[in-house]
């Protein structure tokens, strides 16, 4: 079974991944999690959480950030993604509610990047017919090697919990790690500023993941519960679509699935995954 294949991708093994929302960890009890096909146990100690592999009983690197517990199975080669917006005092910085999804985490990232499904899956919220066209946008690599999609615009009937009607919404997407993607979206109240959503995807195994959203929304006109409710409303609509994707892993062969112009960022993402030798959760391209 592909679920049991261990991960040999250095870019994943030597990186940090979220294994839990700290707020949901039961006090004084051991928390079980699974990361890259490896079962882990997290136990609270005086100095924080200690995380061990259940197959070898060896400790793995663990730390806490942004309200989440993170682990790294190998040797961390770089720090957890920096998010400057989390230092801005007029924002809610809240975990959005971690949700398990029966699909490769790479599929979850790709779905997050897709505007084409808005009118059909998020009808009445992030899109509605007949406004189905995805206008051309730009995709490029940043100096830091991230995938950046800019000039994304879409008509949204209820773009956020504070939206008072339909509006053209500006988006910027950024894939910062193979299993981490961010969205910057115009705030309906302070139109010159952007709400930020990071989606950290925990690869449980190749065909299962947990989506951990981090929400950095301007507080203007909205409470934390409202922000969370909106995130879960939207993600709850995506979940059955994701779980019905076939194959469950993301094919990286350019001929495996047929993209259209609106999929430019997805095409770029798949090529970027090939360039970084990401195979875990993917169906690698054949050479």
């Amino acid at each position: 079974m592909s679920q049991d294949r261990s991960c040999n991708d250095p870019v994943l093994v030597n990186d940090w991944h979220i294994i839990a929302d700290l707020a949901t960890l039961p006090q004084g009890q051991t928390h079980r999690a699974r990361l890259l096909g490896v079962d882990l146990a997290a136990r609270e100690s005086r100095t924080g959480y200690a995380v061990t592999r259940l197959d070898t009983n060896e400790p793995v690197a663990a730390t806490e950030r942004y309200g989440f517990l993170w682990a790294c199975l190998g040797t961390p080669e770089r720090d957890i993604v920096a998010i400057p917006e989390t230092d801005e005092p007029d924002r809610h910085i809240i975990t959005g509610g971690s949700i398990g999804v029966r699909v490769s985490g790479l599929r979850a990232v790709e779905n997050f990047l897709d505007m084409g499904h808005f009118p059909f899956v998020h009808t009445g919220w992030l899109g509605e017919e007949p406004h189905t066209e995805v206008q051309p946008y730009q995709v490029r690599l940043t100096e830091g090697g991230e995938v950046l999609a800019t000039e994304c615009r879409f008509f949204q009937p209820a773009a956020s919990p504070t939206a008072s009607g339909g509006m053209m919404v500006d988006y910027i997407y950024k894939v910062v790690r193979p299993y981490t993607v961010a969205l910057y979206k115009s705030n309906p109240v302070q139109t010159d500023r952007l709400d930020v959503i990071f989606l950290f995807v925990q690869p449980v195994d190749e065909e299962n993941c947990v989506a951990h959203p981090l929400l950095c929304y301007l507080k203007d006109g909205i409470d934390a519960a409202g922000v969370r409710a909106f995130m879960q409303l939207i993600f709850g609509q995506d979940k059955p679509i994701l779980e019905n994707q076939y194959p469950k892993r993301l094919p990286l062969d350019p001929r495996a699935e047929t993209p259209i112009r609106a999929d430019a960022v997805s095409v770029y993402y798949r090529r970027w995954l090939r360039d970084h030798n990401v195979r875990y959760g993917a169906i690698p391209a054949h050479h």
Partner: protein
Amino acid sequence: MIKLYDYELSGNCYKLRLLMSILGVDYETVPVDFYPGREHKSDWFLRLNPLGQLPVVDDDGLVLRDAQAILVYLAARYDPSGTWYPRDDPRLLGEVSQWLAFADGITATASAARLHDGLFYDVDIDACRAGAHRLFRILDEHLWFGEQEGRDWLCAAAAPTIADIACFPYVMLSEEGGISRQDYPAIRRWCDRLKRVDGFIVMSGIFPASRARAA
């Protein structure tokens, strides 16, 4: 105005939103941070419902808990047609109550499996799935025999009742708990019929019926 203490991903809250939409009843929602905030176990919410469960409604000072109980109240009070909760038909009322209790069984099995898979609840997942399949088999046979007799709904009435609303959400969401409905064709046809009732609304995870009428 009716105040609904609400959580979007709760099928039990959705039952009430669905019935109120069908009946054209105005209401406002109070979002409760059920997950990950566990606000339904907070002091202020426990004063409203000591069981610490959603949904709760407050209708002009009348505070009610339990989705099935609230369906009874809303239909009895706000459905002028009297078909959703047929107060004057003892036989039908017995049937409605029977299926309201059955809906609690669906919540204890299919909904629990969904909470396990999606939100990491600690339950016996195999027992939940097996229990859901047992109930779905009973439901499917009941609906299949009903179709042979010209009955479209759970109870022997020409129109749907709150029993249909009570059983529908966690059946429709079952695949999120790893419970396939492939083997239950009569359940699928019944769900499609309910989706075509005037005033039907969706929740996250439930999609509208296709525009073309099913053959």
